[in-house]
C-alpha cells in the first residue's frame, strides 16, 4: 500500500518541514533532552564500545544461523503450548490474524506498540472488518486518534505539543482542556483501563525472540504491554524473524543497551519475557498464545551479505535521534514504517529499490547514525551502497549522462583547465540569471551565494612559482 509516488511525497513534505521553524525547534528540544539523559547512562557502562562489539557479534551469530535459531525457538515455544505461525508476507500475516479472531469470536483487540502491525497495515484492515482495535501505548493511542501513523518508532507523537494533545482529547473524548502532561496521561489511562478488561484479544510485538527458551521479550515503560499480555484470553504476537537472540542470558546485555540507546534509561521500566500461555499451575494469562513469525521481505535483506547487519537492528531509534536530516524533516516525511537512517537502509529492501532509493540519496552521509548504533550497523555506508545498487539496477537518464560527461572532463587535465577558465570568465554574468530558471546552479543559489572565483587558481600559483 505504498503511496503512488514516494519520491514526490518525500520532497514535498521534507521541503515544507525543513523550513518550518516551530517544528524544527520542537524536534531539537526533544532530541536535546534525549541526549542529556542518554550520555550519563552510556558513560556508566564499563566500556560501551566493547559492549557494542559483543552485541554485534551476538547478533551476527544469530542472523548468520537464523534458520537454526528459528527452529530452536519454534521447538521450545511449542513445547510450552505456544502456537507458532509463519507468514511470508503481509497478506499471509493478515489472514492468520483474521482467522484467529474469527475462531475465537473476538470483537475487540487491544494492542501494545507493534511496529510490525504498521508494516502490514493491520488496524485499517481490522477496522474495515468491523473489529474494535485500540492502541494502548500512550503515544500510539494519540496517533490513532489523529488517524496518523507513528512519527518516530520509539517516540510516536514527539511532534505534538501538549496543547495539540489536549485539543485532540477534547475533540474525541470530550475532556476539558488541560496543558498538564500528567492530567493528559491520566485521561488516557482511565479510557484504556476499561479496554484492557473488556478486550478479547491482546496483540503485541516483541523486541527479542529467545531461541534457547522459546520466549519473546518485550521492552516498555508504561505497563501497557504487560496488561495486554495479562488480561485478554487470547494473545497474538507479530514478530519479525530477525529478532532472534540465541540465549536468554544474552538479554543481560541487550536490555540495558536498548534502554540506554533508546530512551537514555539504565533499564526500561518493564522488561518482560513471555514463555507460553497461562501454564497449568498459574492463575492468569491468556489461554492461547500465538506467535506469528513474519518475513515480509526480510529474507531479501538477509540475502545481501554486505547489508545483512541491518537486520541486527534492535529498533532503539538512536539513529533517528542523532540524525540531522531527521531533526529537520521529522518522521512522517519518510512515508515509511521505519523512519530515519535505519528506515532508509531497510525500506528499499522491504518495499522495492526503485521506489525508495531516494531515501538513501537524502542523506549527507555524515555517519552520526553509525557512530551511535548500539549494534554497530554500518548505516551510512549502506546508504552509499544502496545508491550504487540502485544505479547498477537502473541508471538515471540525465544524471547518468551527466556523470559520464563529468568523468570524461575530469580525465582530461586540459579540459579541466579550460573549464575552470571559462568558469572564471562567465562568473560575472551569473548574477543576471541568479535564482531564475536559467540558472544552472539554481538548487544552490536559491538559499546560498556562490563563492567568488579568485583570479588565480592553485594550479596557476604552482605553475607561476615554478617560474
Amino acid at each position, binding site marked *: 500500500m505504498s503511496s503512488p509516488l514516494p519520491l514526490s511525497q518525500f520532497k514535498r513534505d521534507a521541503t515544507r518541514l525543513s523550513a518550518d521553524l516551530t517544528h524544527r525547534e520542537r524536534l531539537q528540544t526533544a532530541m536535546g533532552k534525549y541526549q542529556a539523559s542518554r550520555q550519563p547512562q552510556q558513560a556508566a557502562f564499563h566500556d560501551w564500545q566493547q559492549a557494542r562489539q*559483543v552485541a554485534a557479534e551476538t547478533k551476527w551469530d544469530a542472523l548468520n544461523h537464523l534458520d537454526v535459531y528459528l527452529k530452536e525457538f519454534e521447538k521450545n515455544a511449542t513445547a510450552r503450548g505456544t502456537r507458532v505461525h509463519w507468514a511470508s508476507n503481509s497478506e499471509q500475516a493478515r489472514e492468520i490474524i483474521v482467522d484467529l479472531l474469527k475462531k475465537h469470536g473476538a470483537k475487540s483487540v487491544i494492542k501494545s506498540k507493534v511496529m510490525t502491525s504498521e508494516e502490514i497495515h493491520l488496524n485499517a484492515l481490522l477496522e474495515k472488518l468491523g473489529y474494535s482495535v485500540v492502541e494502548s501505548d500512550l503515544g500510539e493511542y*494519540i496517533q490513532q486518534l489523529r488517524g496518523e501513523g507513528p512519527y518516530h518508532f520509539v517516540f510516536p507523537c514527539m511532534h505534538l505539543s501538549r496543547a495539540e494533545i489536549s485539543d485532540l482529547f477534547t475533540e474525541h473524548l470530550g475532556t476539558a482542556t488541560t496543558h498538564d502532561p500528567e492530567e493528559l496521561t491520566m485521561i488516557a489511562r482511565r479510557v484504556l483501563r476499561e479496554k484492557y478488561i473488556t478486550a478479547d484479544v491482546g496483540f503485541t510485538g516483541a523486541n527479542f525472540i529467545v531461541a534457547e527458551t522459546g520466549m519473546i521479550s518485550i521492552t516498555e515503560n508504561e505497563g501497557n504491554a504487560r496488561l495486554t499480555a*495479562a488480561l485478554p484470553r487470547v494473545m497474538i504476537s507479530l514478530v519479525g524473524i530477525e529478532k532472534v537472540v540465541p540465549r536468554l*542470558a544474552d538479554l*543481560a546485555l541487550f*536490555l540495558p543497551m536498548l534502554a540506554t540507546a533508546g530512551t537514555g534509561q539504565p533499564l526500561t*521500566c518493564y522488561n518482560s519475557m513471555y514463555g507460553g500461555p497461562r501454564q497449568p499451575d*498459574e492463575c492468569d494469562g491468556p489461554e492461547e498464545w500465538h506467535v506469528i513469525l513474519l518475513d515480509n521481505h526480510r529474507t531479501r535483506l538477509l*540475502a545481501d551479505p554486505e547489508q545483512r547487519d541491518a537486520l541486527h537492528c534492535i529498533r532503539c531509534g538512536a539513529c533517528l535521534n542523532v540524525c540531522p536530516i531527521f531533526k529537520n524533516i521529522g518522521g512522517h516525511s519518510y512515508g515509511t514504517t521505519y523512519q530515519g537512517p535505519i528506515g532508509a537502509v531497510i525500506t528499499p529492501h522491504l518495499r522495492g529499490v526503485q521506489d525508495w532509493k531516494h531515501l538513501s540519496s537524502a542523506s549527507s552521509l555524515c555517519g552520526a547514525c553509525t557512530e551511535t548504533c548500539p549494534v554497530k550497523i554500518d548505516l551510512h555506508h549502506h546508504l552509499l551502497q544502496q545508491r550504487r545498487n540502485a544505479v547498477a539496477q537502473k541508471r538515471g537518464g540525465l544524471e547518468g549522462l551527466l556523470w559520464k560527461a563529468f568523468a570524461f572532463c575530469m580525465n582530461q587535465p586540459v579540459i579541466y583547465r579550460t573549464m575552470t577558465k571559462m568558469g572564471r570568465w562567465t562568473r560575472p554574468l551569473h548574477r543576471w540569471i541568479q535564482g531564475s530558471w536559467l540558472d544552472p546552479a539554481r538548487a544552490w543559489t536559491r538559499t546560498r551565494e556562490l563563492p567568488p572565483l579568485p583570479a588565480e587558481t592553485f594550479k596557476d600559483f604552482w605553475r607561476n612559482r615554478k617560474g
Partner: protein
Amino acid sequence: MNTERENILGRIGEALRLTAPQPGHRDPAEPLRTAATAAREWLPVVEEQTESRWALFARKSVELKTTLVLCDSPSDATTKLLEIGRAENWQRVACHGKAAAANLAASLGLPTVNTTPSYNMAELESCDAGITECDALVAQTGSVLLTSRSGGGRALSVLPPHHIVIARRDQLVPDLPAAYAQLHATYGGRWPSLIAFITGPSRTGDIERILVLGAHGPKKLTILVVP
C-alpha cells in the same frame, strides 16, 4: 501454514549461502563472544561488598522514584505497610498465596483479593495495592525481578495503582548476568510463563518528553526489605 514455514526457512537457507563480513573487522579466526557470557565485563561496574551494593540499589531507587524501605523485622515491615496503607487510605488490597505476601496483606486487616486460579480480574482492578514477593533485586539497575510464580501471576504486579514488593536482604544480586544465572538455577526447564524486570513505577515521556508516573501500570512501587 506448514508450507510457509518451509518457504521461509528455504529462503533463509538460500540467503545464508554467502556469509556476511564479521562485525568490527574482527579476525574471523577468533571465536565469537556472546552477550550471555561477556556482558558482565562491559556493563556498569558493581562493587564486591554487600554494603556498597545496597548503597547502589538505594541510589538507583531514588533515581527511579521507587520507595525503598529497609525493615528490621517482619513485624517492622507490617508496621511500615500499615502506615502506607493508612496514608493512602487503602480500602482493599491484593496479594497471592505465598506466605510472606499473604501474611503481610492479612496483617492490614482489609478486604483482600488473592490471585488464586479463579480470581476475578475486575476485583483485582478495584484494589488499591498489589502485594507480591519477588525472585531477586538487582543492584546494577535498581530492578525487581519477579515471575508469574513469585509474583502471583501476570496482573497482580501491574494492575493495582501501588505495587508493594516484599523482599529479603539476601535476595540482592549484583547485576543482570547474575539475575539470569539465578533464573536458570531456579527454573531451568520449568519456566514460568512470565519473567519480568520491574525498574521503577510505570512511566511515560510521550508528551513532550516530560516524565509522568503511572502511565498504565502502578503509579508507585514500594520495596520492603526484611532481614
